[in-house]
Structure formats: structure tokens, C-alpha cells
């Protein structure tokens, strides 16, 4: 009876008893969700255009953030370091296309996936040699990202919203809108989608495979830089940022690998639900740390009913 009470009654009673705390939990969930969505977007873009699951997305986040901070350490002004980092990410995209992807055209998907593991290992070693493994401070203030907080006292309680987090949410939102406009309204964006739908047909109408691959890897590089700035501002820039890529996996399972809007909605759903579950059920009943598995279990549950994910395309292959 006690167990049922703590499972079905107490969590909701706690929410009602401390609504300010619930608001804080929901806000933290939204922030986490946006951050997860950002990582997932990098995966989606590359998968959408090339059917490659890019294992290197996590290390690209690390590499982009380290380049930005590294350039600033060398004396480059922060606002100049950002475009220079984008140049580096463009060179990386060209390098990956020329050295890794182009020789592997027409190879099975698993070969291309393995190639991205190779890219990961290369970037880990290369990044360590160039930048070292020490934790570095993100140049938040130099990038004019506000660092204070807005504090409210709703229902006689206390809610704090970090300006840094608010900037991340707004910035990520703008990035997503720009991406959606680019994919749906621009010629290149439509070319990316065409290539994702059918390689042969896209090539037959003159779409250049190599140009599009460079483009999507570069856009993923831009997303990696945005992700690196946002996550780096939270806990410093180090190789640990690579681990956050794993947080995108359940988002991709839930939202579908091809859907940009799926990545956003999936990210937000997982961010909010895992936070609510951890605070109101996980910590009191299971000793906490449920965030490590909740998103996967939730995504698996959804997959039982929608194997293609919430927003993935239902593909029927006729034999």
C-alpha cells in the first residue's frame, strides 16, 4: 500500500505542495531537452543525406569547442575565433569527404559507420596532441553570453533561470529554425533531402554527391560548435563532452533518424520526462541516477508501438 502511495499519489502531492520546485524541474528539463536535441540534430542531418550513422558527432563537438578555446588562448579575439573555428570545421568536412567518404562510395552502410569510428579515434588522438587533455574554460563572457540569472518567487517559493541556459534555449531555437528554412526553402537544402530519399535519382538530375556530403558535414560541424559552446559553458571544455553524444541515442530512437522536427520534439520529451521521473520517482523509490537508463527504456517502449520512431518515415520494402 505504501509502495502504491509513493508511486501513484505522493509524487503528484509533492508537485502540488511545491509548485515553484516543479517549475524549476520543468525548466531544467527543457534546458536538458534542448541540449539533447542539439546533439541529435547533428546525427540526423548526416543520416538524412547519406544514411551514415555518424559515430564521430560527439568528438566533433569536443574538437569544435577545443578549437574555439584554443584559438582564443593563442590570442585570437573571441568573435574572430568563432568564424575561424567554422573554417577549421569546413576543412575537416572537406578532409572527411575526400579521404574517408569518397573512397567508400557504394560500400555497405556498416562500412561507412565503421569509418566514422575511425574518424572518432583519429580526432581523439589529434585533438589530444594539439590541445592537450586539460579542462579548459569556455569563453562565455568573451562571446557576450550573459552569465547572471533571473530569479522569481512564484507561489511564495523560488525559481532561478540562468541567463546562460536561456541564451542556449533561444540560440538553439534560432539554429533549428534556420536549419528548417534552409532544408525546406533553399536549393541546396532540397538537394540534401533529395539525396536522402534516393541517391541514384538525385545523381541523375545533376546533384553532386561530394558537394552535398561536404555541406552536411560542415553543417554538422556548425551544430557541433553550437553544442560545444552551450555544454562547455556548463562544465568546461574537455574530452568529456564526447560522452554527451550518447544522450542523443534515445532521442534518435524516439524521434526517428531522418526527422529534424523529431530530434527537437524527441529531445524535449526526453529532457522533461527524465527529469520529472528522476526527481519524483527515481530518487525517492530507486536511489536516483535513473537518467542513465530512463530515456532508453522510454524510447524502447515507444518503439514497441512505432518501430520507426515518433516522426521517422515508415519504409515498406516490397520483395
Amino acid at each position: 500500500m505504501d509502495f502504491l502511495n509513493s508511486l501513484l499519489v505522493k509524487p503528484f502531492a509533492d508537485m502540488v505542495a511545491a509548485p515553484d520546485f516543479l517549475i524549476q524541474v520543468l525548466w531544467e528539463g527543457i534546458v536538458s531537452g534542448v541540449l539533447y536535441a542539439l546533439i541529435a540534430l547533428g546525427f540526423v542531418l548526416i543520416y538524412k543525406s547519406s544514411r551514415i550513422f555518424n559515430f564521430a558527432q560527439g568528438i566533433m563537438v569536443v574538437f569544435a569547442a577545443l578549437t574555439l578555446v584554443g584559438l582564443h588562448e593563442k590570442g585570437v579575439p573571441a568573435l574572430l575565433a568563432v568564424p575561424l573555428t567554422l573554417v577549421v570545421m569546413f576543412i575537416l568536412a572537406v578532409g572527411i569527404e575526400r579521404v574517408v567518404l569518397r573512397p567508400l562510395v557504394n560500400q555497405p552502410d556498416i562500412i561507412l559507420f565503421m569509418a566514422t569510428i575511425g574518424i572518432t579515434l583519429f580526432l581523439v588522438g589529434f585533438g589530444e596532441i594539439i590541445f592537450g587533455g586539460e579542462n579548459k574554460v569556455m569563453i562565455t563572457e568573451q562571446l557576450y553570453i550573459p552569465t547572471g540569472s533571473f530569479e522569481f518567487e512564484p507561489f511564495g517559493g523560488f525559481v532561478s533561470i540562468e541567463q546562460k541556459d536561456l541564451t542556449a534555449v533561444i540560440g538553439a531555437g534560432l539554429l533549428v529554425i534556420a536549419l528548417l528554412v534552409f532544408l525546406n526553402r533553399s536549393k541546396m537544402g532540397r538537394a540534401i533531402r533529395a539525396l536522402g530519399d534516393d541517391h541514384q535519382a538525385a545523381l541523375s538530375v545533376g546533384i553532386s554527391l561530394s558537394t552535398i556530403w561536404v555541406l552536411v558535414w560542415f553543417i554538422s560541424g556548425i551544430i557541433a560548435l553550437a553544442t560545444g559552446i552551450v555544454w562547455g559553458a556548463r562544465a568546461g571544455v574537455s574530452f568529456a563532452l564526447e560522452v554527451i553524444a550518447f544522450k542523443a541515442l534515445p532521442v534518435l530512437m524516439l524521434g526517428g533518424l531522418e526527422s529534424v522536427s523529431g530530434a527537437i520534439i524527441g529531445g524535449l520529451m526526453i529532457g522533461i520526462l527524465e527529469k520529472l521521473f528522476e526527481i519524483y520517482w527515481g530518487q525517492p523509490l530507486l536511489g536516483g541516477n535513473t537518467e542513465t537508463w530512463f530515456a532508453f527504456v522510454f524510447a524502447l517502449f515507444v518503439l514497441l508501438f512505432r518501430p520507426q520512431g515518433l516522426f521517422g518515415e515508415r519504409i515498406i520494402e516490397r520483395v
Partner: protein
Amino acid sequence: MKTLSRLGLLSAAVAMGALAGLPALAQDSVNVTNLSYRTGPFAATGTPVMNGQRDYIMMLNERDGGVNGVKIVYDECETGYNTEKGAECYEKTKGSSIVTQPWSTGITLQVLPKSNVDKIPILAPGYGFSPMAEGKTFTWAFNPPTTYWDGASMILQNIADGNLDSLKGKKIVLLHLDAPFGKEPIPLMQAYAEKHGFTLLPIPVGLKEMQNQSAQWLQIRRERPDFVVMWGWGAMNAGALTEAAKTKFPMDKFVGIWWSGSDADLKTVGEAGKGYRSISWSFPVSDSKTMQDIKTHVIDKGKSLSAPGEFDYVFYQRGVVISMFAVEAIKSAQAHFNTKVVTPEQLRWGFENLKLDDAYLAEIGFTGMVPPFSTSCANHAGHSGGWMLQWDGAKFVKSSDLLKADETMIQPLAIAEAKKYAEANAPWPTNDECKM
């Protein structure tokens, strides 16, 4: 230029590593391999420590030509703090190295039973399984100068101002990495909680949550603890400090173990981290003779891999101290066995007979960098004690005199846990020759 220099140094390190395997050099050199982690989620902790370890050995080779004419080859095998890779590194290097430095509690637990068979000493300074200090049970393992349980005891005494009964009725959160390392202090802290009447609330932080600990800190906000004790490693430390600053948790109520006291982590929060404390068995003394010699022979010559400013950091200089432990054990074994190139068995004797008193520490240029301690066949840690360090907004300063752990509380638990471990891993060889 720095990058080219790094690449050059790396090539030289690889070449040195390759040369170390040649039989011609085996007669006048000893290999002290480090199972390092310069990459992966914990690299922020590992890198400065490894740099310090490497630079001390390099300085000795440059300044003195090694130890008593024997060159020390410092090799690294990268584990990324991954237990499986660590076990592979152990297997790969056990034939060439006279010591294993596993560098994670998980890897230490993996290689612990193997060391009995391979007869190679494990050096795990200030980490690993705390009961390893019981030398009669753990013949080949050494965790000088002090153990995690000692650290927990010192932290509790410090926050209680020396009177543990004053913690009665209080709530202490243990914010820990959800890994063997993070769970290490729980048995002792629970025993303390039962004895002195405070509530211990362990809050685990998963690997993927290290940089986004909002859920953990929401729980801390809800629980309103009197103190938060952190057992963090790598990115978890900076993540926790950022959240603590964000939630305005009073920093003077927030204390970490020695691996949660990195300058680089505190710089992430800067002034907002003022008042945060970390227990430490080492302290940076940049003008000590050893550090100045490292500056002259390694740093100024551009041979170090360390980042600018890292020289003064707690973790870099702790790495220097750690390599000193290995070197002193080699020296001790050389003198006792009247030999130059010591074997792993002889080195084990050296680790059991470390005598680092104040006078000797001054003689070798380590004044104030580590508390004096000595080991024996029964005591593989030395239980040196430590200092409470406090972040002043820009650097760590000492905020206490030398603290000592309450061994009357720890010893019975350590002996019982060592016995339990030996029984669970029977047949487990013990050192019956040790009569202490």
C-alpha cells in the same frame, strides 16, 4: 610552434618507448609504465597528473642521469580510464615494467588478483580499494600516502571542527561518481553516520550526467543538507561546481576528496567557487628545489607536455610527488639488494620500506609538498594524513594544519574488509612472514 613541439615530443616518446624494448638498454634502465588516461571523460584529471609524473622522471634523467646510474624509462599505455583497456594495458606491459600504475579504482580491482600471480607491485597513490593498505593481505598492492577512507575520516573531522558528535542530527550528502571509485567511502561514512547520529545521503552521478547534474542538485536543493561531500573525478567535478554555484549552495559547506581539487576545474567557476574545500595529501610548492629543477631541466627546455600555468597546479605537482614515490622505492631497493637494475620483487620490498620523514623530504627537495610518512610490510599506505585546501577564487591555499585520519575507527573495518576480500577470492596468498 607549441603544436610542433608537442608532435616532436610525442614522436620522441614513441621512439623512446620502442627503444625501451631493446635488450641492449635493459641492463641499465628500468621501466615504470603508467596506465595513463589523457583522453576520454576523465582526461581533465589525468592529464596534469601524468604530465607531472612524466616531467619528474625526465628531470631526474636529465639532471642525474637517472637513479644511481640507472636510467628510468617512463612509458604510457593509454586506457581512457576504461577498465577493459586498462586490463589490456596491464597484460601488455607487465613483462617490461617493474611496477603497474593502474590509475582507476576499477582497473586496480581488475589487476589486484593478477598481481599475486605475476608478482608485480601495484602503485595506486591515494586511490584504489582502501583496505589495500593492509599489507599482510594485499602483498603486492600499495596506496601511499593515504587511503580514501582516511580522506573521508579527515573530511568529516574537519567539517565537524574536530568533534564528530557535533554532526548529530545533521544531514550530509555524498555526491559521488557512480563507479567503484565513487562508492569507495560509503561503508566507512555509513559506519560514522551510525556512530555519531547523522544522516548520510549518497547521490550518484552517472557517467553521462557528469556535465549536466541539474537533477542531482535539484535533489540537494530539496533535501537541504548541512554539507555536501564530493567524490568526483574528471568532468564530474566541474559539473558539480557549476551547479553548486548556480543553485547558490554555500561553498564553505561543500568539500571534496583530493581528486575533486583541481585548479582547472575550479577555474571553470572562478570567483563563484570561493570557499570550496578539498582534502589533499599534496600541496604545490613551486619554489621547492625539485620544482625549480623541473623548471630548469624540463619546462624551460620546452620538453614538457604541460599547459601554460599548469606548473603551479595542485594536480601537476601531485604527479611529481607520485613519481617520487616510485623513484624512492627504486632507490630503497637498490640500496638494500645492492643492485642497480631492480626487479619487480625487489621493488615491492622498496615500497614496503619507504621512509619519507621531514629531513629526507628536505634532502630530496620536497619540503612541504607531501606530509612525512613511512610504510611497512603491514602498512602499505603510510596514512600520512593531509591538509584541507581552500579555493580563494584564483588558487588553492592551505586552510588547516596537517589532519590525521581516525585509524581506530578505520583499522577494524579495513581488516574486516581485507579478510572478506581474501575469502571471496580464495585461495588468496597472504604475507605470513610479516610479523608486525
